[in-house]
């Protein structure tokens, strides 16, 4: 009801509802107390299907009482639960309140288990089989849509099972990544470098990881790299975990290491978003997830 600026519609709804119920009660009462004139039952003059006729008999008692009970139930319901405009009802029930109640109950049920793992450090949690199983379930529920069920990711989504990390793979960093999310931005440089410049830089990037490349173009590209790309990827192209800038000297590619793909990345840029889960999952589940993810590339699977 907060869509409205005044209380008018709230009262409008409440008045119509209460008036309708009262009208039903009055109608029912008047119909059931009025006697047929002279106590004589007659037809109402309606005939269907040749011989089906309607009599003006009084309402059957069971039906009348059911109607009264319905009215009482309706009134009681509207008194106890929200139903009359903005009136919140005696119980003050809300759907979000019920949801929170269920959450609180789940918290009470599972809280001790989560608390036990929350108190352990991540390598210890990762070594616990039950914690790994919980972590896997959480991962399959929340993470696998992007990182795939086997956590090996896909095009644009990092592989979490190798030792290659954009922002760092130590337990605290993984936990921070899941909690707050990440937003990796490669700015589009197509306009700044021109098509020729883009291709030269792409050749140089290829050369960094030892790929086949055109040495002349790569040499030109190196100059551009040294003035622009160096800011994030560093002078030797090994990236910067603080910015999430990828290491360009290894064979691991987020979007692919073909020449055309690299050129596209330089030309159009990339914008990669890892959503923040801290608020949604809470620290205890994030901790278990971080342990699961850390465990994928450290020791036990």
């Amino acid at each position, binding site marked *: 009801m907060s869509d409205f600026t005044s209380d008018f519609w709230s009262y409008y709804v409440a008045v119509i509802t209460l008036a309708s119920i009262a009208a039903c009660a009055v109608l029912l009462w008047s119909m059931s107390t009025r006697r047929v004139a002279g*106590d*004589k*039952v007659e037809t109402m003059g309606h005939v269907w299907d040749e*011989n089906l006729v309607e*009599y003006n*008999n*009084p309402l*059957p008692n069971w039906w009348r009482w059911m109607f009264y009970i319905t009215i009482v139930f309706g009134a009681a319901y509207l008194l106890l639960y929200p139903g009359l405009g903005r009136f919140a009802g005696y119980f003050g029930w809300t759907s979000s309140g019920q949801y929170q109640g269920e959450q609180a109950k789940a918290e009470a049920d599972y809280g001790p288990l989560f608390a036990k793992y929350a108190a352990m450090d991540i390598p210890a949690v990762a070594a616990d089989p039950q914690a790994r*199983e919980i972590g*896997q*379930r959480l991962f*399959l529920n929340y993470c*696998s*849509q*992007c*990182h*795939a*069920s*086997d*956590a*090996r*990711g*896909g*095009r644009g*989504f990092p592989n979490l099972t190798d030792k290659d990390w954009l922002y760092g793979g130590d337990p605290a960093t993984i936990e921070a990544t899941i909690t707050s999310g990440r937003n990796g931005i490669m700015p589009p440089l197509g306009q700044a470098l021109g098509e020729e410049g883009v291709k030269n830089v792409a050749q140089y990037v290829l050369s960094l990881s030892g790929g086949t490349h055109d040495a002349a173009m790569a040499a030109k590209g190196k100059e551009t790299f040294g003035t622009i790309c160096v800011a994030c990827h560093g002078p030797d192209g090994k990236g910067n975990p603080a910015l999430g800038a990828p290491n360009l000297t290894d064979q691991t*590619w987020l979007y*692919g290491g073909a020449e055309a793909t690299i050129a596209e990345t330089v030309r159009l840029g990339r914008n990669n978003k890892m959503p923040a889960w801290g608020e949604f999952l809470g620290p205890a589940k994030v901790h278990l997830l971080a342990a699961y993810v850390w465990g994928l590339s450290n020791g036990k699977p």
Partner: protein
Amino acid sequence: MSTSAKPRLAQAAEPVEQALYEIRRKIYPRAVTGKFAASRWFFVWATQLVFYGLPWLSWNGRQAVLFDLVHRKFYILGLVFWPQDVVYLTVLLIISAYSLFLFTAVAGRLWCGYACPQTVYTEIFLWIEKAIEGDRARRMKLDSAPLGGRKLALKAAKHAAWIAVALWTGFTFVGYFTPIRHLWAEAFTLSFGPWEWFWVNFYGLATYGNAGWLREQVCKHMCPYARFQSVMFDRDTLIVTYDGGRGEPRGSRSRSVDHRAKGLGDCVDCGICVQVCPTGIDIRDGLQYECIGCAACIDGCNQVMDKVGYPRGLIRYASENAVRDRLSFAGIVRRVLRPRILVYTAILWAIILAAGYSLYQRVPVKVDVIRDRVASVRDAEEVENVYRLQIMNTTEAPRRFLISVSGLPGLKISGGDAEVEIGAASSRMIPVRLQAPRQQAKTGANPIVFTIQTAGEAEPVAIAEKASFVVQ
């Protein structure tokens, strides 16, 4: 059916309000003994021993029959049904329906007369009523007497006994859904949960109300079966029949006179058949929808026939044709084997055998395969697809399963065939990565098959599940 349109119309035309509703006359069924009453008591015992006793049985350290709604596991002796097995419930309902059709076509409302809970609990409640208040005549007298100390005591005792039975019934009912021994412990401290309170009392109240108060009204006004039984009857259906040709004209007579000479039939018009009827009808008016086929009138009439020295069977199980054509017993049996019955029987047995075979063949493992959508093709020499296998172990012991795959040359599970352990009666999701050489697979969806087989067992069971391997 005797209720033709004419009396209805005549009733309605009367200028009184009662024309629309007949005020219920309370029925005081007279207790009766005999072959059919004994059969009914047999069924009362048989059904209620099962109903009250079953939840107390144990099987492998758990309740033998338990419908665990919270965890969605339905334990019936050695079997554990999951919601995915709902087809068996469907089959059970179909079998019940066909049995009803078959039995009704053969001999009318056998279900109603002997096994229906409404009949069974009414029988139990009537027995209590008779034990406390006495038989029909005494009950009628008691009810018409003014309220006094004795009447109050008798009524209170009766209702207390009824309520005790009803609550025990409600308790037992809930015991099918929540462990009954636990419930029993809770009963002593009155610490049921809210839903347990509700269902114990609701089911108890329904039993008390239906078997104590409503009785035949349930059959006459609430149960749909009475209304559509006529489509299951035919002229060869055995029904509780009064042999009018032999009985009429009815009338009382002195035992010393030859009634035939006086022009009387065999019916002595003693009214026993009406007094014993739990629905308060007169079977001599012919088949009526109120008749639940309990055969109490047969027992009652046979006793009278014995007493007056006439042959039994003035009221008996007979078909319309049998009475009309004076068929012999062999003739009646021959008519029972008519196409309708044979078709019903054949269909019923086909379903029972198919269901039994299916249960026998039921593999205690279920698998759902869900293909990952994000990374259908990975940039590698081999094409990779990732799947999530939800493996459900429906047995009550942990089991190891071997996952393998087939359908494409060179298709393999990365890291080799996987072996996983699934806990007792639980399910687990297993990520599986498949690899196939690029040149072996055509672009698009390639049909493949996952095989999940129990590992390390003498008689392994296997289940196959289809999936697609996508190549871009």
